[in-house]
């Protein structure tokens, strides 16, 4: 079979599989960036002993457990605590002084995966004396990731990198003040979790659920095609208070988005934007 034909069939199979997932399980991956998704689906083929995406589709439709497993392949993102320390440093130096002026603060971590960023923000806000009046909404579409995030348990061998990032992010305390280590893992302090609410939420299909002062959504939009990016950014715009803040990943920008006109650059090099006045 000519290469072009094979490639076309693979594209058709991928579209059909995503349609099947949407209709049966109501997870919508149809507007995700297809090149990344393709890589993940190809590695899932091996895991589920399937030769083609058509075979995988058959299993996904008839065996819910296969779908649950596939969801891990399609959504789980491993991040580090205080990934891109300069982002957290900019939040600390430029955004925190403005957050401080509010009597109560709401933060939304959209696409929180296994929670690294949620705990990073909670620690930062604690160091700045703001955690007591802050509520952090942490949302994701993957229920297993949300459960892991809620546990606040990470492998001990990742903690050295977390600690170094924390220091570079202007940490005012020792990261070890916030966890206890046992059996090769660390468990973060329950007191941090009292300020977090974990919830299932899809940027593709759900709507705004709260009004917030800061949204951190990093390295999530890069998995979306442009229309879905615009939808998510529209949600962020609607969820933010007057002059609220939006933080994106270090290589994400509003430059190619229809939403660019609704935000001002705030700390551009760290991808922190601020909602424009008047809308």
């Amino acid at each position, binding site marked *: 079979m000519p290469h072009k034909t094979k*490639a076309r069939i693979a594209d058709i199979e991928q579209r059909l599989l995503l349609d099947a997932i949407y209709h049966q399980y109501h997870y919508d991956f149809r507007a995700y960036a297809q*090149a990344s998704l393709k890589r993940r689906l190809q590695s899932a083929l091996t895991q589920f002993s399937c030769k083609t995406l058509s075979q995988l589709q058959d299993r996904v439709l008839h065996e819910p457990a296969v779908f649950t497993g596939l969801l891990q392949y399609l959504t789980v993102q491993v991040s580090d605590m205080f990934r891109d320390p300069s982002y957290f440093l900019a939040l600390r130096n430029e955004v925190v002084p403005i957050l401080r002026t509010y009597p109560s603060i709401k933060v939304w971590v959209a696409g929180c995966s296994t929670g690294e960023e949620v705990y990073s923000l909670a620690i930062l806000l604690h160091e700045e004396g703001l955690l007591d009046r802050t509520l952090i909404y942490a949302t994701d579409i993957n229920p297993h990731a949300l459960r892991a995030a809620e546990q606040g348990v990470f492998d001990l061998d990742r903690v050295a990198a977390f600690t170094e990032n924390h220091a570079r992010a202007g940490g005012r305390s020792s990261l070890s003040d916030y966890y206890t280590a046992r059996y090769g893992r660390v468990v973060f302090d329950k007191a941090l979790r009292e300020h977090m609410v974990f919830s299932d939420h899809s940027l593709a299909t759900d709507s705004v659920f709260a009004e917030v002062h800061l949204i951190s959504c990093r390295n999530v939009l890069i998995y979306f095609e*442009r229309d879905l990016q615009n939808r998510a950014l529209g949600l962020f715009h609607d969820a933010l208070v007057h002059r609220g803040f939006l933080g994106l*990943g270090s290589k994400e920008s509003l430059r190619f988005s229809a939403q660019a006109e609704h935000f001002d650059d705030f700390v551009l090099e760290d991808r922190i934007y601020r909602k424009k006045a008047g809308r």
Partner: protein
Amino acid sequence: MNASAAHASNTPDGGPYQAIVIGGSSGAIDVLNVLLPRLPVGLRAAVIVVLHLPRDRRSLLVDIFRPRCALPVQEAEDQQPIQAGHLYFAPPDYHLLIDSGPRLALSVDAPLHFSRPSIDVLFESAADGYGDKLVGVLLSGANDDGAAGLAAIHAAGGYTIVQDPASASMPTMPEAALARFPRQTLRQTPSNTPGKTPAPHVLTPEAIAARFVQLHAQRLL
């Protein structure tokens, strides 16, 4: 197939190549310094480069190459439309992929061959996106990232070039790519034929630069 390859003077359906993807690791920056400044204004293809870099530092590639190149040089951004005659570098700690449009897309999926960006990730997605309208070039390096990707470009009918291992300061990467092709086909591959060949062209950095200029003169690049 050999007969048609010998007569081919064009990409399989006539148009020019739309992109050149280049991958390299240790020892490759010196080769890029031979190749990239020679790319002429008016190039019909976009040039997209993955070089293995330290993950936690800002890349200096744009600063290094912008003043030396005739083409506009930039670091790839997510969702950026790909423009002919522009040169893009993958940012450190992100995979770079080609998505429909064609646009550049980034991901933070797990490192592949201990590398992010990974050459295989770029090459395989580019082979999907560009098919036989693609030139793939694999340079010096100390691991086997890029070998599978180059094979994918070759399978899709693209034009493939591997740096001659004898000219590479780290021959592991070019050798890993060539190991995927039978020795005999490597010897048979004509040194200057565009279009489908039985194996990648094996060329020194100077010869790769000359090949780009030649393909441009033939209006294929």
